[in-house]
Structure formats: C-alpha cells, structure tokens
C-alpha cells in the first residue's frame, strides 16, 4: 500500500505553470506580423537532449509560452523574419538569457526593416479605403527594399496573404510618396452576410518575402 502511494507521487509531474509572454516592439511600438510565419525558439538547458521549443509570434507581434521554471535562452534563427535579429561576432543568431522563476512579461526590442505608420482604414459604400505611411526603419547597410504594399480584408480577425477575402497590391516602384500611400479594395459578397470586415495593410520585404503590417482594424459598414 505504501509502495503504491509512493510510485504515484514519483510518476506524476507537475504541469508547466510559468508563463513567459511579451511583445516584439520597435521603440516601444508593437510590430504586427504575419500569423504563424515568424517563429522563435526557446532552449532550456540541463537536460539530456538539446532541442528547441519552437513557436510563432501572433499577428499582433506577441508571444506567450507556458513553461517550467528554469533557465532559458530565447532566439530567432530564421533569416526571413521582417526585422534584424542581433548576431554574435561569429555571425550566428544571438540569444537572450531568461531566468524564469515566476510569470514574466517582457518586451523584446528589435529593428524592423519597415514600419507601417498612421494607417487610416475606413469602409464606405462597399469599399475599404486606406491611407498610410511606409517608414524605412533600418537605415544602415543591412536594410532591405520592399517589393509591394498590400491592403487585405478578411471576414475573420486573421488577415494576411493566406487569410483574406480580397486584397489590392501596389508595387514599390509605383509608389511616389511613401508618406501618403492610398489603397482601396471592393468588399466582395460575404456568405453568410455580415456587416463588418477586418482589414490591415502590409509591406512585403524584398528577398525574404516576409511582412510587417499595420494593426488590425474592425470595420463596420
């Protein structure tokens, strides 16, 4: 009887209970990203196998992981993310050391290649209109061009290249004034009918194809 109780305790582990969460920010402003396309990795040391916990940022640029207390390293190894992740002297992706004993919220400051600023999106007479600025934020030699700017709308709150019901695109070469870009798209018929759409504009970075967006807006028409 004693043995049985003993093995019961031994076999059952506590579930992970410490939350690590935060946002990816540029000068304090969150960077909206493409859903499920920008991964980060967490390594916990002190165990037999070495392997990352891979997860993705949300489309608002937030992250959240439920973990065991311990020492972690946070890194981004993907070279196609729309921001510059610091490199070590050897040219490898750098990492953040995180000592996790209780719930922790942290903002991670990075420099994106671009930011979409002052996006004004409105719906009128079956059309979504947008006005926004494209700001090149990474000005040194590692900066990149962008290939196009796109206005996406969707019937659910997930809005991106994969998730949209309509979009309109303008190539970088056709944009004359980065401080005043206008895009508008017709709202297609939605089944079942709804009187709102979600919309945001994104800028696709050339060569790596990833996106930075404006915050998502719900438009009722």
């Amino acid at each position, binding site marked *: 009887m004693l043995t049985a109780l003993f093995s019961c305790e031994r076999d059952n582990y506590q579930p992970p209970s410490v939350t690590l969460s935060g946002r990816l920010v540029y000068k304090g402003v969150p960077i909206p990203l493409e859903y499920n396309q920008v991964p980060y990795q967490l390594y916990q040391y002190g165990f037999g196998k070495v392997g990352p916990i891979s997860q993705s940022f949300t489309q608002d640029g937030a992250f959240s992981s439920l973990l065991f207390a311990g020492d972690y390293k946070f890194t981004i190894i*993907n070279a*196609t993310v729309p921001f510059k992740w610091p490199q070590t002297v050897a040219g490898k992706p750098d990492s953040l050391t995180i000592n996790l004993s209780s719930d922790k919220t942290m903002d991670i400051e990075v420099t994106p290649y671009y930011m979409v600023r002052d996006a004004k999106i409105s719906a009128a007479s079956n059309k979504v209109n947008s006005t926004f600025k494209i700001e090149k934020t990474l000005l040194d030699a590692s900066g990149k061009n962008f290939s196009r700017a796109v206005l996406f709308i969707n019937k659910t709150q997930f809005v991106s290249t*994969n998730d949209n019901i309509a979009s309109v695109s303008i190539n970088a070469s056709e944009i004359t004034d980065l401080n005043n870009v206008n895009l508008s798209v017709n709202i297609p018929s939605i089944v079942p009918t709804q009187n709102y759409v979600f919309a945001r504009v994104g800028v696709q970075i050339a060569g790596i194809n990833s996106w930075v967006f404006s915050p998502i807006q719900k438009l009722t028409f």
Partner: protein
Amino acid sequence: MKKYIYVFLSFLVIGTGGCSSDSEFLDISPTSILSNEQAFSDPAQVLSILANLYNRQVDITSFNNSWSSFVDFGESFPSDGNYSTVQNNGWGYGSWGTWDYGYIRDLNLFIKRDSAATALSVVDKARFSAEARFLRANYYFEMTKRMGGVPLILEPLLYDFNGDPSYLRKPRAKEYEMYDFIIKEAEAIKNDLPANLNDRSRASKGAVLAMEARAALYAASIAKYGANTPVVKLSGDEVGIPANKADGYYQIALRAAKEIISGSAGGYALYQNKPDLAENFANLFLDKEVNNKESIFFEDYKLKTSKVHNFTTSNQPFSSGEESANGDAGRINPSLNLVENFEKLDNTFAPMAHQDANGQPIYYNNPIDIFAGRDARLAGTIILPGSAFKGQQLDIWAGYKLGNGQVVTNQDASRFVALPNTSNPVQVLGKDGPYNGNVNRTQTGFYIRKYLDPTPGAGSRGTNSAVAFIRYRYAEVLLNAAEAAFELGLNADAVNYINQVRARAGLTIPLKSSDLTFDRIVHERRVELAYEGHFLFDMKRWRLAHVVWDGGKMTTSELVSNIGKATKRNTQPFGLWPYKFYDPTSPNNGKWVFDVVLPNLVTGANNFQFGNYYSAIDNNIIAANPKLVRQPNQ
C-alpha cells in the same frame, strides 16, 4: 595381459574421442541462418539479397506511397474526402524529409560483403557491387534533393562498445560534395553494368548515366538560381552551391545525357509505337515490353504476386470503375492549371476558349471540341470530358445551363429532375461528376490517364495493376540535355533535343533557337513529366517554389493569363466544368458550354516558405548528433 591392454587402449580411445566431441558439441552450423560467406556464394542468392535493397528505394511519388503522393502543388485536386492538400496553406518544415541510414548501412554492408566474397565470379561481383553503389548513390541523391548535404557514410559503421559512441557522429557534407559523389560514383560504375535495354528493373549503364545527368543538372541549377534566394543557404555550404560551379555541372549533365543519346548505353529511343499520338503517350507508361525503348529504369510490378498496386483502382473514372460501389475511384483530378498549359499545335499558349472577348459563352457541339488542336500529351496524360476510357464514354457534365444563366443540377446523378416548362424528369448531372463534394468522381472535370491501366481487372481490388513506375526515361534525358545546352548558351543543340520530345507529342513545327527561353524549358518539363515526381524538385532547384506557391489566392482572370510563364502563381487547383445548354428558343440548344470553377472545397492557397526548400532534420537526430547543422529559415 594383451586383452587388458586392448581394453585399456579402447577406453583411452573412447575417452579422447569423448573429449574432442565435447568441445565441438555446441559448434553446429545453423540450418536457418546463412553466414556471410554462404550468402555470397551463389549469384542467385546474392540477387535475392539485392532484390530487398531494390525494393527499398525511395521516390517522392510512387505507387507504394498510394495515390495521394501524386496529388498536391496545384496540379490536381483530391476527390477523396480528405481535402487537406487543398485546404492547408502550405507544408510543414518536415515535409518530404527522408533520413534512412538503416538503408545506407545495409547497402554499405552489401558492398563490403560482396567485395569479400570468394566464391563469386569476378564479373558477377563487379555487377552486384555496381548495382548496390548505384542504389546508394541514387538514395543519397534523393536525400540531397530533400535535405541538402547529409553525412556521407560509405562504410558500415561499427560500434566498439567502449561506452562512448560519439566517434560515430559525422557532420553534414557540403551540398556540392553530395553531387560530386553521385557523379563520381556514376562514372566509376557505369562500365560494370550492362548496356542493356531489357532488364529495366535492375541498374544498367543507361540508368546510371540518367541519374548522373539529372543530378548534375540539379546541382547546376541550384548553383545558378540559388543567387535568387540568398537566404536559402548555410555558411558551411551544407545548403546552397557556389554560383561559379554552375557551368561545370551543366557540362557534366550535357555530357552524361549525350552519352545516352549517342547510343553507347544501349539504343534508347522515344516511344513511338502507336499511330494515335495521345494513345501512344499514354501507352508509354503501360508498355513494359522490350519494344518500349524509352523507359530506362523502373519499379516493376507483377500480377498474381504481392507486388501489385492499386493506382488504377483508386483513380479510374467512376462510371466504368470496377470498385466504384466500394468507394474506390476517381481520386486524382488534374487541374485546369495544368490542362491549359498544353500548347496549341502552332506552339502558342491559350486558355481553354470558353468565352469570347465580350465574356459571352462559346458553344460547342461536343465537349471534347474545346480541347481540339492541342499537344497530344494533353489527352495522353488526362482523361477529358467527352473522351472514353476502356472504350466506354465518360459522362462528365455539371448540369444544364439555362438561357438565363441558371444551372439545373442535382448532387445525385441518378435522381432525375424536370427542366423548366417540362414534365419529364431527366438526368441533370454526369455520372462521372463534377459536383462539389462528390468523392470518387471528378470535381475539376478531369481524370488522370497517365499510368491508368485499361487491362480488365486492373481496377479491381482482387487483381490490381502491374503497370511499372518509370524512374528514368529517355524523354527526360533529352529534356535534361536541352536544359543543360540552353544554360550553356548552345541553343541550337538545345532545340534539337527539345524538338524531338515535342515532335513526338504532335508539335511538329520545330522551335527555333531564338524561340528557346527559360520559360520554355520550365514549361516543357511540366507537361511532359507531369505526375512523375519532378514538379516539386524542379521548382525547388530553380528556386521558383516560393514564387509559384506564394500563398496568394488565385483569381480566374489570373489563371487564364500568362500561361507558360515560369513564375506564374499555382497555389490552387481550378476546374473546367462542362454544362449542357438548355434553351429551346436558342439555336444553341443542346450544345455545350464551360465554366472555369474553383472547386469550393479548395479553401487553402499553397504557401512555400523559404524554410521549405530543405526539409527539417528531426530534433531527435540533431540531439543525438550535435555535429549536424540545422536547416536555414526554420
């Protein structure tokens, strides 16, 4: 006294005899296990060991991996009930990965034991060894296509049980070292193998050279087009090939292909055995006889053994299918994206003419008429509405279209419906589809014809089909030669090769040197080699995969424009649905009209990420061998 001595002596003899038999008592050769020496003593015995190794080859599409390995990439729609390939928005990083070092080990052991064999003739030993080395090089090629550079293990690794196996950890080779190895092996073994057309399920000189040409072409294009995707590389060259190596590899590819074309590997030739060009093209994949001089190396099947496959059972047209009542038919539905890529006979591209310039429908007397005047490979690869399979006319139509554009149809083809202003119920849907969600019937308007076996019984589960899966064939060798020559600036040679393939398909107006473009090369491979396991790897090596599968949804107008462009988006499979036109007041009553349709179960759009170019290496493998570098962008 003498008697006692004999007695004593005899005891002595028995005693010693007993002693010696004691020590050998347990040393009996087993009757159920062959020693290495015994196993490699008889050629037939060795061949049976080799047969196991042949049977373990890995292909991206194959009959062993079921019909579903032929679907995906926007080239077809799965009418099966599991629509994940058209509902997912892309692929996991682990997709297409392969890491079978157990197979590599068995090949290495075979090569070692074969070389140690004493009872085999020199000729047999050399051929067996060359066959195993071919299989090893071919599997390393398969791994390289999917994973980039991998540890190149050429000896069976032995653990010495000292408690620390870390000395067995090997790092990844550079990607070009993999291709160099494949090319070097091919050159080393090609003359140990017969230049013989007849035994195509075993390695031959032709198979080795075809592998060499294809591998060198892959290496060359990764070197050249890798410049377009600078993020897809690793600093140690485990992934990515330096651009300055491109020309060298193109030259090797051309040389190896030319060696086959010149006839020195046996008299391979394009299959031209039937007067009807479409039937000829379809038959190329069915005909396993010696007179099919096109197939170089294939995976063979044999009826009435366990080595048969159900490709025909899974994909035959519903109305004539032998297992339709049991839910087996019509699964692979080719897409309009592919269909419209088959050129017109004057070498121009055009969408299927279902509308005139004003958007008004064009009326046809027969549904097959809309496909007239096209590349014969269209009807050879795809079963079109209005054509027949096994002599039985297909019944593909989506319903009646009325004069006001309204459609009369019914999900159940056997339930008749009366047309407006009539009282007589009539059939309003083809027995072969298309209707969204009707599984085992086409949902695009097309069925696959390539590999479909018209032999009676081939579509029944009890018999199944013995059609071979061709891994290397002469037309691909010609296209490899054409591509390599084109990239080297030898356009006159290139058109000579590509025109042979095109002429066989009925495109008798030859392309001129000046007509040849990269788009033409890409296009020709897409239509000639459709559903043969090339499309994904071709798009990867040209670094076009992230362009054609960019995750964007497609529109109808986008679908019908820019046909034949290598960079054209191909994220969703479209269909072309035939309707009977019903309007008793119109002269067009009873004629056929067509609609371009995105089947409504297609909800995803393929998004090929940079991290998909090289399949992920499993974390457990990396944890066991920290020398392995991770793939980029995952």
